[in-house]
C-alpha cells in the first residue's frame, strides 16, 4: 500500500501544532455557538470523507487482511487458512530452526543499513546544504543537479548503477585510471560479498541525499538570522557558528531526515530485489527483501503468514524507532 510514500518534513507535529496558538479559548456555549460548532463538525466530516472512504475501501481491508494473515499458515491457494496463533511470530524470532536464523542474518544486514544510511545521508547532506546556501551563482542549477538522483530513483537508475559496478564497468576503470587499481573489484562491486552491502548502502545514500539536502537548505534559509549575527558578534568563528548555532537549530529537521531514512532502511527492498536479489551468497539479504521472498518467491511454500508476520514486526520496530528518535531529539534539543 505505502508503495510511494516518500520523505516528508515535520513528522513530529500535531494537527493543531501551529494553529493552536491562533485558536481562541472555547467559545461560549450558547445555542448559536453550538449550532455553528455542529455545522463546523459536519463540514469537517465532509472534508475528510473522501480520504476516509478511500481508506475504508483500499486501506482497512488490506491492512486488516494482512494483519489477520500473520496469524495463519497459507500458501495463497488453500481454500482455508490454517490458524496458528502467534506461531509465525515465534518461528521468525526464535523458534524455527529454518526461519529464525535467516531472520537473524537479515536483521544484522538490516541493522548496518539502518545505521549507515541515515548517518551518511546527514553527514553528506548537511555540509552540502550549508555550502550550497553560501553560493549565489549557479545555486539554482546546482540544486537541480543535486536533486536528480531522487527524481530518477527506481528501476532505470538501478540498472545504470549495475552497469557502472560490473567487473569491467566504469568504477573499476576509474579506480585503475587514477592509480587505485588495488581497490578495483575484479568480480564487480556487487559480486564481492564484502563490498556488495556497502555498495548498496552508498547507492541508497546517493538516492536519499537530495531530499535531505533540500530540507536542510530550507531550514537554513528560514533560520532566524539574528541568532547567527549574535554568535558572530560574540566572536564565534565560522566553524563554531555551524556547530553550536546552526546544527542545533536544524535538529528537528535532522530528526525527520533520520526517521524517514530509518524507515526506508528498515522496510525498503526494491533496490535489493533489483540489484542483487540478496546475493552474492546471502550477503545483502535484508528484512524487507526477506519479507518479499517469503511472500512471493518461496516456491508455493505456505509462508504467506510468515511474510505477513515479518512485515508487522517491521511495523512495530519502525514505531519504536520513531518513538525513540523523537524522544532522543527532544532531549538533545
Amino acid at each position, binding site marked *: 500500500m505505502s508503495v510511494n510514500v516518500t520523505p516528508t518534513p515535520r513528522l513530529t507535529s500535531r494537527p493543531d501544532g501551529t494553529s493552536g496558538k491562533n485558536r481562541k479559548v472555547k467559545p461560549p456555549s450558547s445555542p448559536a455557538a453550538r449550532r455553528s460548532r455542529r455545522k463546523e463538525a459536519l463540514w469537517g466530516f465532509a472534508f475528510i470523507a473522501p480520504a476516509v472512504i478511500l481508506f475504508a475501501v483500499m486501506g482497512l481491508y488490506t491492512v486488516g487482511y494482512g494483519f489477520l494473515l500473520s496469524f495463519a499458515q497459507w500458501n495463497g491457494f488453500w481454500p482455508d487458512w490454517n490458524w496458528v496463533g502467534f506461531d509465525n511470530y515465534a518461528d521468525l524470532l526464535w523458534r524455527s530452526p529454518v526461519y529464525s536464523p535467516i531472520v537473524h542474518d537479515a536483521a544484522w544486514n538490516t541493522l548496518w543499513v539502518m545505521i549507515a544510511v541515515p548517518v551518511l545521508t546527514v553527514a553528506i547532506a548537511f555540509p552540502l546544504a550549508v555550502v550550497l546556501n553560501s553560493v549565489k551563482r549557479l545555486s539554482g542549477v546546482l540544486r537541480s543537479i543535486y536533486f536528480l538522483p531522487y527524481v530518477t530513483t527506481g528501476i532505470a537508475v538501478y540498472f545504470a548503477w549495475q552497469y557502472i559496478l560490473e567487473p569491467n564497468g566504469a568504477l573499476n576503470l576509474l579506480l585503475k585510471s587514477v592509480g587505485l587499481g588495488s581497490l578495483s573489484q575484479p568480480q564487480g562491486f556487487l559480486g564481492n560479498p564484502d563490498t556488495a552491502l556497502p555498495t548498496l548502502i552508498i547507492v541508497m545514500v546517493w538516492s536519499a541525499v537530495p531530499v535531505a539536502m533540500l530540507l536542510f537548505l530550507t531550514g537554513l534559509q528560514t533560520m532566524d538570522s539574528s541568532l547567527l549575527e549574535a554568535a558572530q558578534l560574540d566572536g564565534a568563528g565560522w566553524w563554531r557558528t555551524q556547530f553550536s548555532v546552526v546544527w542545533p537549530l536544524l535538529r528537528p529537521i535532522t530528526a525527520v531526515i533520520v526517521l524517514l531514512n530509518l524507515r526506508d532502511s528498515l522496510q525498503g527492498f526494491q533496490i535489493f530485489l533489483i540489484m542483487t536479489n540478496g546475493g552474492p551468497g546471502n550477503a545483502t539479504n535484508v528484512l524487507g527483501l526477506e519479507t518479499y521472498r517469503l511472500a512471493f*518467491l518461496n516456491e508455493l511454500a505456505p509462508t504467506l503468514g510468515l511474510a505477513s508476520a515479518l512485515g508487522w514486526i517491521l511495523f512495530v520496530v519502525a514505531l519504536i524507532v520513531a518513538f525513540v528518535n523523537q524522544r532522543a531529539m527532544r532531549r538533545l534539543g
Partner: protein
Amino acid sequence: MTGHPRRLARRSVALASAVTMTAVLAACGGTGGGSPDELEMWTFKQSHVPALEQAAEQFEQETGITVKIQAITPDDAFLTKVAAAARTNDLPDILEVHSNGDDHTFGGAGLLEDLSGVVDEEWTDQYLPAVADEGMVTQEYYENSLTPGSKWLGVEEGQRFSVPLTIGTFGIVYANRERLAEVGYTEPPATWDEFIEMLDAVGQARPDDGGIANGFRAPSTGLEWLLQPMAYGMLGDQPYRDLFSDDPAANWGSENGVAALTEYGRIQPYWTPGTQSLSIDEADLSFAHGESTFDVGGTFTLAFLEANGFDPDNAMTFAVPPPEGAAIPDMGLAPFALTGLSVTKDTHNKEGALDWVRFLSQTDVAQDFARNALDLPPNDLGPNPEDAVGPVLGAMAASLSSDENAYHAADTSYRPNAYDSARVGEVLADFTPLDRGDPADAGRNLANLIESYWSEQNR
C-alpha cells in the same frame, strides 16, 4: 521444491521476442471462459504463446472451439493472479503449470480437475515412458503432502493434475567448439578431471574470455546444475541421497560430502569474472557473446543461445561428467516433465478443455509445438528425433538417457520438506565462486542448513 524450479520459467520467458509481444497483444483482452465454445488458457511462458496459438488455430478448425492464450509473467505475478482468480472462481479453463510442482499445489488446494480417470493408457502411450506418469500424485508425493508445512497439502495418491507439455533436464555444459579446437580439444570430456583440464587449457590460452559462466544470481543453479549431477555420478544413487540426510556420517559434512565438494571446488579458478552476480540469462548471454567459453544450463539453453545469435553448430554440449573412479562412470541425464497442462475446476466446458489438452498431446501436434516453441515435447519421437523436431531439438532429445543409472534431477524425494534450494545454493555459493572457506567448511554449513530443514519437519 521440485526438481525443475521457477527459474526455468524465467529462462523460457527470455525466448520471447517482439513477435510474441504482438501475439500477446492480440491474445489479450476480453474476459473469456463464459461461452462454451471459447476456452481461456493461462501460461507463465511467454515463449509458448505463439506456438500455442498456432495449435489453437488448428484446433478451432477441427472443433469450432476457440482457445485464448494469455501469458502472465513474471512468475510471482502468475501465481498472484492465479491465487486471486481462485478465490472468486474466475480461473481460466486451462493452466500451463510447472509439472510436479504447481500442479500438485493447485490440485491439493482444489483448483484443478483430477485427470486420472480420463488420461488412460492409450493417451500416455504417446509419451516417452520416462515421463508418462509425470503429473500423477505418486505415493512419495502423497506421503510428503501429509507432513506439516507441505505445499502439496490435500492431494490423494493416484490423482493426476497435469499431463506433460514440455520435458528436458539440466546439468548440461555448453562449450565453444572453435575455441576448444584452438587448444586441441575436439571431443567432450569423459570425466570431471578431463573437464577441469579443458577449463585450464582454455583459461591459459584465453585469460580474458576463457571462463565458465553460470547464473549464480539464482544460487540454486550451482547446486542443481553442476554439483548434484557430478556428485550423483561420483557416489552413486544411495550415497548421493544420503548427502541430504541428517546422518552426520553420510551427509554433506561426511567424508563423502567433503570429497564431492573438493572435486566440485576445483572449478573455482575458472569462473567468468562476475559470474556470481549474473542472472541465468545474463550468463547464457555472456557465452553467446563470447565473453565466456563455457556455460552451464539445460536442454532449454540451446534455444536461447540460438535466439541470441550463437551458432548451434559451434556448441559442444555434454552432461556434467563425474570424476575418475566414479560409481557411475557413464552417467546419463534422465528427462523429466518441465511444464504440464491442467484443467481447472472453474472451467465452463470441461469436455472442450479436455479435448484441447488431448489435442496438444497428439504426437504430430506436439512436434509442431516443439518446433515452434523450441522446447522438447514429452512424446516419443521415434528413432530419428531430428526428422521429427529438427536438428537442434533432435540432438537434444537424443542426448537424454533412459538408462536406469541416469541422474534424475526431478526426483526430490530424498530432501526434507522445507528444503529451499535457493538458500542451500547460497551456502554453496559461499564456497565457490565466492571462495570463502574450504570444502570441510562448506560441507559443515550445508549439513547444518539441511539439518535445520529436517528438524523443522520433525518439530
